């Protein structure tokens, strides 16, 4: 402990200082009040020993100053004879003690001991005070904890009531748990079943009121070893593997979980027991796996290219057929994989599906792995997440290349038949002629006539055979038989063919055929058939219309810079937009059983084959106009 000695007499400072140093104190000295204050400020000794009578600042003043700076510092006053009044005044100023001069070591020791004790006591007191605060804090925390526990108990109580209510609801039983693939029961403290769910009832019977552990095999079939028994004993939820007796005495493995439900008093009132049938879980897993497998199989083996794409048309999944034809493009962009282009196709159905959530369809020509064009019909369907937002789009592209080829084929066949039927009929008629001649020869017993007739029949059969072979050959592919033809002449002949029908039916047939049409290289048979078809349709459209009194069909033909332009206009019944859209499709007809659905389809193919253009505009009730352009 450190002590500051203040005395104006150096001898006394020295003697007392040596004595205190011997007693184990660290000693500081000061010769006046002012010096003492300076040392005190610097060293802060807990004890100050000062003479009362000093020149300048006396001991009492020093005491007052030190107490003002540090009330806890103990100050011992040293007094001479007759200074008792001053000593009492010092005590009033909270001096610790006073010692009379001359200062003996014993007295000094006692005084200092007293000061030390006082300091120690004060420290202990201070520590006690601080401890008390800590204690209060701990107590307060405990109180809050208790409060929480009370609140939790309240909640548990509520939950217990709730489950009790659910359990008590006879109508629904444990309806909440019925969707679960597990056996659920609630048992009371006596392990009697309060309620069970539907699956429990189905599997184990309605055991309400009976002992819950009776269904277990082995040691668990006792009140102390059963899961519920252990839960009640420990107050903790339990988890164990158990064997369960079914109603037919079969054993099955189950995973049992229990949870205590406490009452208001904190005691376990009820126990919730969930038994997950391992077999049931296995069965569900198997079912899921099988479903997934079937789905994957369907996905892979469906006779079309299936991809799942995100909003940026990035392929997230693709089926086997797609991978075979277009390579493994998962993660790549749809239009890059399908078309090798840098931007989405015009009218992309997937983008439209992302926009409106509907399915869309379109026909596209894409490129396969070997660069061959593949005609596809694309169907899309949105894939939504649980929130109902469109997460992706499934795109199914069906290869209709074969169908397109068949359509072309059919068109060729149609044109072939149109062009050949006249010839075939002629041949058959001539054959009849030959047979007639043979018969006539026999009737007249004219050997020469029979000979001639038979010669005819043989020749005609040869020609028919040739023609049939031609058909079979051409049926594969019909080449246009192009010849230089006067366009005006062709137009006139077409008009001649149709005009009588129009006249007969009271339709005014107006021909506006320019005479400076020149020649063009066409297959006259095919092109005439197409034009006749459209003209006849125009006349038919007029007959269908009963609203107008007078009907007209205009057949206009005029040249342009590089070809010949045909226009067929009628003021007949007109067409609905949906009819217009499907006009040139194969087997599409508005004429019911009177139409073949081939006419306009073949007409379009004929025009296409000539490198021309065909189009139609129409207004329902007003009429239609067909325009055909054939290059020279």
């Amino acid at each position, binding site marked *: 402990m450190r002590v500051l000695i203040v005395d104006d007499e150096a001898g006394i400072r020295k003697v007392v200082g040596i004595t205190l140093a011997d007693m184990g104190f660290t000693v500081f000295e000061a010769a006046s009040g002012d010096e003492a204050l300076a040392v005190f400020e610097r060293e802060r000794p807990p004890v100050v020993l000062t003479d009362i009578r000093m020149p300048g600042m006396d001991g009492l003043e020093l005491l007052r100053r030190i107490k003002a700076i540090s009330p806890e510092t103990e100050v011992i006053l040293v007094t001479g004879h007759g200074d008792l009044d001053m000593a009492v005044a010092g005590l009033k100023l909270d001096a610790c003690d006073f010692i009379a001069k001359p200062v003996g070591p014993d007295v000094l020791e006692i005084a200092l001991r007293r000061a030390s004790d006082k300091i120690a006591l004060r420290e202990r007191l201070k520590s006690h005070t601080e401890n008390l605060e800590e204690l209060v804090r701990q107590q307060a925390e405990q109180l809050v904890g208790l409060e929480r526990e009370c609140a939790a108990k309240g909640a548990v109580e509520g939950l217990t009531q709730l489950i009790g209510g659910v359990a008590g609801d006879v109508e629904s039983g444990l309806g909440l748990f019925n969707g679960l693939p597990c056996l659920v029961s609630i048992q009371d403290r006596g392990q009697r079943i309060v309620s069970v769910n539907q699956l429990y009832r189905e599997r184990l019977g309605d055991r309400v009121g009976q002992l819950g552990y009776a269904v277990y095999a082995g040691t668990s079939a006792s009140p102390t070893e059963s899961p519920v028994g252990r839960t009640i004993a420990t107050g903790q939820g339990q988890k164990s593997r158990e064997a369960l007796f079914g109603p037919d005495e079969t054993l099955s493995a189950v995973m049992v979980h229990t949870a205590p439900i406490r009452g208001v008093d904190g005691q376990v009132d009820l126990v919730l027991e969930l038994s997950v049938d391992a077999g049931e879980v296995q069965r569900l897993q198997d079912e899921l796996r099988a479903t997934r497998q079937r789905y994957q199989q369907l996905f892979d083996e469906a006779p079309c290219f299936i991809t799942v794409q995100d909003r940026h048309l990035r392929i997230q999944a693709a089926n086997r057929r797609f991978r075979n034809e277009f390579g493994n493009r998962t993660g790549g962009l749809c239009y890059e994989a399908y078309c090798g282009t840098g931007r989405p196709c015009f009218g992309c159905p997937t983008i439209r599906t992302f926009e409106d959530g509907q399915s869309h369809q379109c026909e596209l020509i894409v490129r396969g792995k070997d660069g061959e064009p593949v005609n596809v019909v694309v169907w899309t369907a949105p894939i939504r997440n649980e929130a109902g937002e469109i997460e992706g789009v499934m795109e199914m592209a069906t290869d209709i290349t074969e169908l397109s080829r068949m359509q072309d084929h059919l068109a060729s066949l149609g044109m072939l038949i149109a062009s050949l*039927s*006249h*010839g*075939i*009929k*002629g041949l*058959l*008629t*001539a*054959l*009849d*002629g*030959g047979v*007639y*001649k043979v018969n*006539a020869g026999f009737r007249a017993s004219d050997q020469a006539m029979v000979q001639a007739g038979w010669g*005819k029949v043989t020749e*005609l059969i040869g020609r028919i055979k040739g023609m049939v072979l031609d058909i079979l050959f051409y049926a594969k592919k019909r080449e246009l038989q192009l010849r230089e033809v006067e366009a005006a002449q062709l137009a006139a*002949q077409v008009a*001649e*063919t149709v*005009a*009588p*029908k129009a*006249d*007969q039916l009271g339709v005014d047939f107006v021909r506006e055929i320019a005479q400076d049409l020149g020649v063009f290289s066409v297959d006259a048979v095919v092109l005439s058939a197409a034009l006749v078809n459209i003209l*006849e349709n125009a006349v038919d459209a007029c007959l269908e219309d009963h609203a107008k009194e007078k009907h007209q069909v205009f057949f206009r033909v005029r040249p342009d810079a590089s070809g010949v332009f045909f226009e067929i206009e009628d003021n007949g019944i007109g067409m609905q937009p949906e009819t217009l859209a499907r006009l040139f499709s194969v087997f599409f007809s508005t004429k019911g059983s009177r139409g073949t659905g081939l006419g306009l389809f073949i007409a379009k193919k004929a025009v296409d084959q000539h490198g021309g253009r065909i189009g139609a505009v129409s207004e329902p009730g007003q009429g239609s106009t067909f325009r055909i352009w054939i290059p020279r």
Partner: protein
Amino acid sequence: MAKKIMVVDDDPDIVEYLVSIFKERGYVTCSAPDGESAMGVLEREKPDLLTLDLEMPEEWGPRFYRKFSQKPEFKDLPVVVISGLPGIHLAIRKAIATVNKPFEPANVLGIVEGAIGKP
């Protein structure tokens, strides 16, 4: 004098067939292979009835019909259309009948007899 039938068809076999049918029945016949030459034959032979094919090279049946029917002497000449073209029954409005190829000889003879009587 027996009644005369003129056959116009571009297929000589069919011409021969029709001619022999009419001849055997007792009619007199004449023929032409196309519309262009038919006009001369018509004016020279002046038949009582005409059978006409529609689709022929050079000049089609309907045009030939219009040409000769404008002449007063042939205005009322009965015409039987015999053709392989579909939808031909309206091609020549005044035709007394339209026969599709291939035809039944008895059918054609019946039409002819109905129009101009027995030979």
